[in-house]
């Protein structure tokens, strides 16, 4: 039995948080932070939405928001 409701969104998406920075490559000001799945796993990125240059790119936890108990004790 499902314990969650049927999703209403037509597509899956992640929120892209605006970041007050300027892209050093193209000079664009629409810079956002979000998580992407890429080669090597999940990454937290800060990317220019104009040219898609990654201003920051840091590995995200492999299991997302889930933190195994064993890693905290």
């Amino acid at each position, binding site marked *: 039995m499902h314990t969650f409701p049927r999703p209403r969104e037509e597509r899956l998406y992640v929120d892209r948080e605006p970041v007050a920075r300027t892209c050093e490559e193209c000079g664009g000001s629409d810079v956002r932070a979000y998580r992407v799945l890429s*080669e*090597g796993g999940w990454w937290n990125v800060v990317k220019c939405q104009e040219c898609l240059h990654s201003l920051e790119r840091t590995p995200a936890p492999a299991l997302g928001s889930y933190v195994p108990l064993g890693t905290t004790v």
Partner: protein
Amino acid sequence: MFGVDVGGTFTDVVAIRDGKVEVTKVPSSRIDPAGSVVEGARRLGVADSAVFNHASTMGLNAVLERRLPKVAFLTTEGFRDVLDRGTVHRPLDAQTDPAWRRTFGDAARPLVPRYLRRGVRERKTADGGTLIPLDEAQARHELEILKRCDVEGVAICLINAYVDAEHEIRLRELVREVLGADVPVSISSETSPLAKEYERASTTVIDVIMKLLFSDYAAQLDRDLGGLGFGGQLNFADCAANLLPWEEALERPFRILFAGPAAGTLSSVHLGQAIGRTNILCADVGGTSTDVSIIVDGKPFVQNTFEIEHDLIINALSTEVSSVGAGGGSLVTVSTSGGILVGPGSAGAEPGPACYGRGGTQPTVTDAVLLMGILDPKGFAGGEFELDADAARRAFESLDTPVPFDERVRTTYRLAVAHMAEEILNVAVRHGVDIREFSLMAYGAAGGMLLPSALDLLPLKEVIIPPHPGLFSALGLLSSDQVYYESESAYVVFGPDSAEHINAVYDRMEARLREHLGPIADGLPVRRSFDGRLVGQGWETPFVQIPDGPITSESIQAVIGAFHDAYEARNGNRFDMIPVEGVTYRVEIVVPAEKVDYAPSDEVEPFPAAPGGTLALEFVGPEPIQAEWFDRASLTTGATVTGPAVIREELSTTYVAPGQRAVIGRVGEIIISTHSEEVAR
């Protein structure tokens, strides 16, 4: 005639004037790469030279080290990760390694960073139709972004553009409108109009990178050589060491990425012809690595693609060369269990081996050879600098290992030779040849002092040290012809119905090539070949030669027969009942060029050579042994040297081990063998 081989460490310059070979070595410069070439030309006097043939690893090193200009990559929307995907092959040692990543992927070391790889809305179908017209507004938007990012060059590779180039040509016009007419652009339909989008894309990207790296360099070279009074033809060598006039080379410069090693192979072919050797394994011992190639029946093994690094593939005709990380500068290290390891790390040119006295503290193979007494500390590199034996000794003493000192040195030498011998054997096995029928051509400045000892490990017929071994690759640039080729892809199953279509493809390519070459191609024959496969196969058998004459519904059977013969020669079996499909078609025109002339002297009965003196060799056996040394310049045809012995020359040293015998051949080559009977010359 001038031949110049620009390596990472040294620029080798060879000049042939009135049949006499003159050589010099100039340190290569990263800051001013053309400067070392011009300096070499100045030293030997280039003014009266007719040709100046040039090969450089500058582009290859820039790609390997990712010292690249900022280029963009435009492709069909949805395909921008084609460069990351590669052919999806994993190397054998990574099959079970979950952490393995391609070295050129987006997360590692991309040729083009992902944000500069942009998708353009368009789509051509495989039969040349238009599924989606080129969206010029969207393309302009992407180009505006690239303009803001200050890209220096653009590579364009659209899906199926090898069938119809319309969209690529229009996109190039848009690039020039938006980014400027002086921005170099390479389009795949001109660079490498072949099927398989990944190889086409990577070749196009390398092409635009090479345009940026070489255009200023070549123009400067042409200008500076002109300043020295040179009025002849400046040629660049391609990946198979064939020559191209420099302006021609820069039209599709991906072809000149990897020229040095192929030049050594071609040099071996040419020398082999002069001394009657047609089956040769070639080993070029450099500072960092040893490059091994093979010549069977007088022909080098040419392939239609090559890998710069794993899965980074270029569609260029190239001589097959495999490398092993063992050379004169290979570092000696200690394993976790305390054993001696040699390579693959190298001391490079700076600081170089410890004995160079330039700050290197780790021992290398060169240090070991110096301590053994093979190298003359005062006569190294033509006496340009003196080697420091004490520094070499200290470097070996500093190793943290229980292995005794003498065993450290001895093992270093033996391991270096063993690594090279293993690669030589690998190449022979891969080509299915009997190593006993092959001569080993050993060159590179360190080739003569290491590779004769491979006779103890491999049942080779003999080891040949050519004249001027340290500059033998540069000499290969004076052993080559100008070769021009065109290629095109079309998937066609061969049969009487398709003969006309195939003939039309060849006629078109030949007309294009002749028009491009103009009068120099008049009267020269065209060589035709194709890469084909049995229907259903996913890989091709390359370089199937097409018989002369037009391809008609009658003569197509001879073409199909030629494929089955080539398939059998390569794979050992044939399947006459399976239809043949052509994939890539090629035409080639060879324009003969002036070459180095090895004039064999008359046969002479072998006679003992007169030694220059004696020396003590250490670490060869348990006790030091006495050996004779010889000056190569004084050895004439028929002179025989019995090991242990050392043969010295200006830029190289040859070591004849105990139990070996060396005879000077008819063009001055040293033929070393372990046979007790008369050495065949």
